[in-house]
């Protein structure tokens, strides 16, 4: 049996060759041997990750590191080339009710003819199931969710009439509607105003205080240590994962952002990161 990994990266557990290990169901997200490729080009490679319960976890890495893809692979939104991701010990399709997803704000068309309340009510659709309409009770819950993110007064506003921060709050309210145990959020802090950023942080802390687990793709290195208890540093592979105090080190950041990049990748990186 192989006990030593030859990759020289001692932080990783040895690759499992034996049958799937049993995960205690309290692990919100367990990822094993996950590889994702787009058009035969790998985006994520050999991901091994166990996210502990009740933690506020930041996913940090350069553009194109596969942060969003990692979330999507856990949600069956992109095909996995190998490996699996288990949510509370079960594959995603059996654990839908325990997960809420906040996609990137730019992923939808904000000119779509719906108001804020309509969008938040979408968080109840899985509970309702096929064919059933949004009930009065669910609409009331949607109103409560909007109140929790502080924009109940904008419920009837068409979504294009909302500011970027307000749109992000609508998305968070929709996730609250899903009443999940694990929240996967893709860049919720991107291009929001300071008040919204503060509101989101408070919401995340409240969720984790209730024992919920939040996995948040984050791009602002300056706030990592104040926001997150736990971080995952990623650049196609997991560079390091663990409690922020131990993991958020200069050396690990160097490994994530620099060092291994060759000139071409650096150029591509610079192009990608130039503001549109």
């Amino acid at each position, binding site marked *: 049996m192989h006990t030593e990994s030859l990759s020289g990266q001692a932080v990783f557990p040895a690759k499992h060759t034996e049958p799937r290990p049993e995960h205690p169901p309290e692990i919100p997200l367990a990822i094993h041997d996950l590889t994702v490729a787009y*058009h035969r080009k790998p985006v994520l490679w050999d991901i091994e990750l166990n996210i502990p319960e009740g933690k506020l976890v930041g996913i940090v890495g350069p553009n194109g590191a596969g942060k969003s893809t990692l979330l*999507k692979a856990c*949600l*069956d*939104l992109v095909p996995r080339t190998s490996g699996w991701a288990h949510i509370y010990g079960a594959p995603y*399709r059996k654990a*839908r009710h325990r*997960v809420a*997803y906040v*996609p990137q704000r730019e*992923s*939808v*068309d*904000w*000119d*779509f*003819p*719906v*108001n804020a309340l*309509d*969008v938040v009510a*979408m968080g109840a*659709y*899985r509970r*309702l199931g*096929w*064919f*059933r*309409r*949004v009930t009065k009770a669910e609409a009331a819950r949607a109103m409560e969710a909007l109140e929790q993110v502080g924009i109940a007064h904008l419920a009837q506003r*068409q979504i*294009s*009439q*909302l*500011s*970027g921060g*307000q*749109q992000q709050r609508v998305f968070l309210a*929709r996730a609250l509607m899903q009443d999940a145990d694990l929240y996967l959020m893709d860049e919720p802090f991107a291009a929001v105003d300071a008040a919204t950023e503060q509101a989101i942080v408070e919401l995340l802390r409240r969720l984790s205080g209730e024992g919920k687990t939040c996995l948040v793709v984050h791009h602002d290195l300056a706030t990592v240590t104040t926001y997150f208890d736990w971080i995952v540093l990623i650049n196609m592979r997991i560079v390091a994962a663990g409690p922020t105090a131990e993991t958020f080190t200069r050396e690990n950041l160097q490994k994530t952002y620099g060092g291994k990049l060759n000139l071409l990748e650096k150029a591509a990186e610079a192009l990608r990161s130039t503001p549109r």
Partner: protein
Amino acid sequence: MNWTAFDTWIVVTGALCAVACALPGCFLVLRKMSMMGDAISHAVLPGLAIAFLVTGTRASVPMFVGAAVAGLLTALFTQWIMRFGNVDRGAAMGIVFTTLFAIGLLLIRRAADHVDLDPDCVLYGAIELTPLDTLGIGGLDIPRAALVNGAVLLVNLAFIAALYKELKLSAFDPDLAGTLGFSPQFLHYLLMTLVAVTTVAAFESVGSIIVIAMLIVPPATALLLTRRLLPMLGIAATAAVLAAATGHLAALVVPGWFGFQSTTSSGMMAFASGLLFLLAWLFGPEQGVVARWLRRGPVEPEPLSQTQTKTT
């Protein structure tokens, strides 16, 4: 002008057809897939031709099955070419529907010697002739085309009523739809099948080109006038009916002003919907050109949102 029962039936048939198209058309427009209606309306042709060649009749059922299959194939092929050819949706659609349309035309030409499936009719339809082909129901002679379009309209209404929230969700945020267990792919193919069936019903009356106007223009008009989905469906249906009525009337009257005979009604119906769109664009209450011009002040203290930053 000499308005007869014929004219009434033409308007009724046109209106039923236009509303049947406008309802699924709303979701095409919202999914930014307007041209998918174009693609499918052309690509159903080989389905129709093959259904005809196999069964030897122009009976509705095989025609609808042929069209539904062809429509589904169009959507599937487009998806495959996008995925494996790594090209955008527009290019993939262009490849698929022109190829299928060409095959359809060839098949019709092959069969044209002994059938009355006429390429001209396929392109422009013959709504003026539809009242000649009637079925007696309850002592009333109802044109077959009106019945077919009416039936499709009912199917579309039932479909949208049953799957309203699923269609809304998968059009707005397909990723969330996927994570919640409402397969956006399944809903996509279902909608495409519906569009194919609707297109075939509209075929005989308005042909495969004007049907595109009916699928897209009333929903686009409605989107200029409202910011909610349900009113959008209602306004699109109203615009569709208005376009059918004024279109036929205009086809009878307008050419007379210039000393010509009456012109094709389906063409005028499409033109009328274009005119309604223009009116909505100019005089829409909130987003209309005039309203925006009147509202323009010295400064714009409106909340910054993506749309506004885009347009200003």
